[in-house]
């Protein structure tokens, strides 16, 4: 992905965040996410990674610094699937369309398209209680995709599923990234997930979180699952790991 000359989709400029209780969560963070980019932030737990997404989306206000982003249509994939248990998969996926007053006639088709995209067709009328963890995350992804957001924020979405399901979901996420052409900002603990998905990996230090390193990921899309066993993949993951250890100390 070559450098983008147009304005970035999301731009953090010297963002700092201090909570009312005095905790300094983020210190002077600056980076951009442009169209066609998939940026992942890795860092130790409690370093303020999620806070970054909350600031980007406007759920939290930063103490200082500037965010440039169009907040009219941001996709946000939460840590938990946050499906409404009283709605079927289909009705869950339609939720954001309802909130944006999409005409009822269009909702069905738009929701169905998103459900097909994440491979949940056949489960439209299931309630969340009868879905596995991975399927719930798929439904959650579908819900976010209905509005075709130009920017998608992922808050450790696959942290709660098992390893194999996580790898599956990573591959699906990449397909969606290529097809839907959103700019992605992804938060995770997992280095291999970060490298596999991203165009760029940022390493954040322990609290207060700062960006201590940035790694460009050179692999072309589409990426095959076997990329994970490529020596170059392992080498890059090793570098990031080293940098993360430094950040931990």
């Amino acid at each position, binding site marked *: 992905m070559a450098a983008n000359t147009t304005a970035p989709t999301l731009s953090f400029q010297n963002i700092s965040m201090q909570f009312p209780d005095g905790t300094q969560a983020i210190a002077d963070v600056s980076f951009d996410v442009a169209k066609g980019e998939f940026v992942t932030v890795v860092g130790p737990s409690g370093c303020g990674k999620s806070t970054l997404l909350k600031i980007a989306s406007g759920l939290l206000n930063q103490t200082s610094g500037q965010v440039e982003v169009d907040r009219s249509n941001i996709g*946000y994939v939460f840590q938990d699937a946050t499906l409404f248990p009283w709605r079927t998969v289909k009705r869950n996926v339609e939720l954001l369309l*309802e909130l944006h007053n999409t005409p009822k006639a269009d909702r069905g088709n738009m929701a169905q398209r998103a459900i097909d995209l994440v491979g949940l067709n056949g489960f439209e009328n299931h309630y969340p*209680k009868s879905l596995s963890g991975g399927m719930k995350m798929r439904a959650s992804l579908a819900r976010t995709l209905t509005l075709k957001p130009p920017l998608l924020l992922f808050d450790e979405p696959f942290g709660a599923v098992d390893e194999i*399901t996580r790898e*599956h979901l990573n591959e699906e996420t990449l397909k969606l990234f*290529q097809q839907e052409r959103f700019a992605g900002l992804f938060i995770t603990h997992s280095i291999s997930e970060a490298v596999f998905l991203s165009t760029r990996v940022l390493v954040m230090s322990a609290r207060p979180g700062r960006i201590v390193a940035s790694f460009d990921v050179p692999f072309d899309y589409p990426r095959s699952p076997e990329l994970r066993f490529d020596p170059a993949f392992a080498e890059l993951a090793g570098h990031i790991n080293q940098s993360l250890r430094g950040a931990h100390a």
Partner: protein
Amino acid sequence: MTTTLRADPVTAAEIAVLPDDAPPAQARKRDGLFAIVYPPVVLGLFTIGVWYFISYRVLDKKRRFLLEPPHLVWKRGFADREVLKEMSSGLLVTGKVALWGLGIAIVLGFTLAIIMSQSKLIERAVFPYQVMLQATPILAITPLIGFWFGYGLNSKIFIAALISLFPIVVNTLFGLTSAEQGMHDMLTLHNAGRITRLRKVMFPAALPAIFAGLRISAGLSVIGAIVGDFLFGQGDVGIGQLLKRYANLLQGEKLLAAVILSCLLGVFVFVSFGWLNNRVVGRWTTPSRGK
């Protein structure tokens, strides 16, 4: 190009490893009807046996009126047309009072809970008095209620409403505030207003708790209606007045029959709300024990 990159359908592995936090309801092994029915039947028969034992072995003939044997309760209570008519009409009267009381408690309770859910300040202001009201023994304020509302229907309904209000408010409020933060965040991100939030998140999330409260309150409203009828002797004759009359006349069989009937009314109300609960939220909640 647009459709070539579809995701794979959900893999078999994914379906196979349905997690333990979400077992599909149908898959759970169900016990046969016999296994469910016979333990309570055995216990019931045993109880009747003890009952006979006390009636005939513990009590002598002069004191048998204290606990008449089951078959006499049946014969002079349920099988006697006149008595049965008297009691079923009493049951109807009491049932109506209970329903009115419950209805008022529901309207008032929902309104209060919704208002309290919208403002922490109001919740903090109201709650202590709510608890005080609940802690007040009904008996202690009976004279006052009679003084204000008379000794007939109004006072009975008042007691039924008063006694069933608390669980509705507490459960509804708890339910309204039980939705996950993530759901609220999602609505915040998409600029949803108060009403939308209430309608799309808070109220549906509250339904299971609301039904739990309703079940408790429905039972309490029956108790309230009987107590009210017992304490305020005027107006249509309900089960409470009958209980008092039979007790005064030392008609043990009828008294027991009336007790059993009021018990059945309570059970009926409880089961009805359980059924309603399953109809409304059963499809999406994980079934709990003890239905």
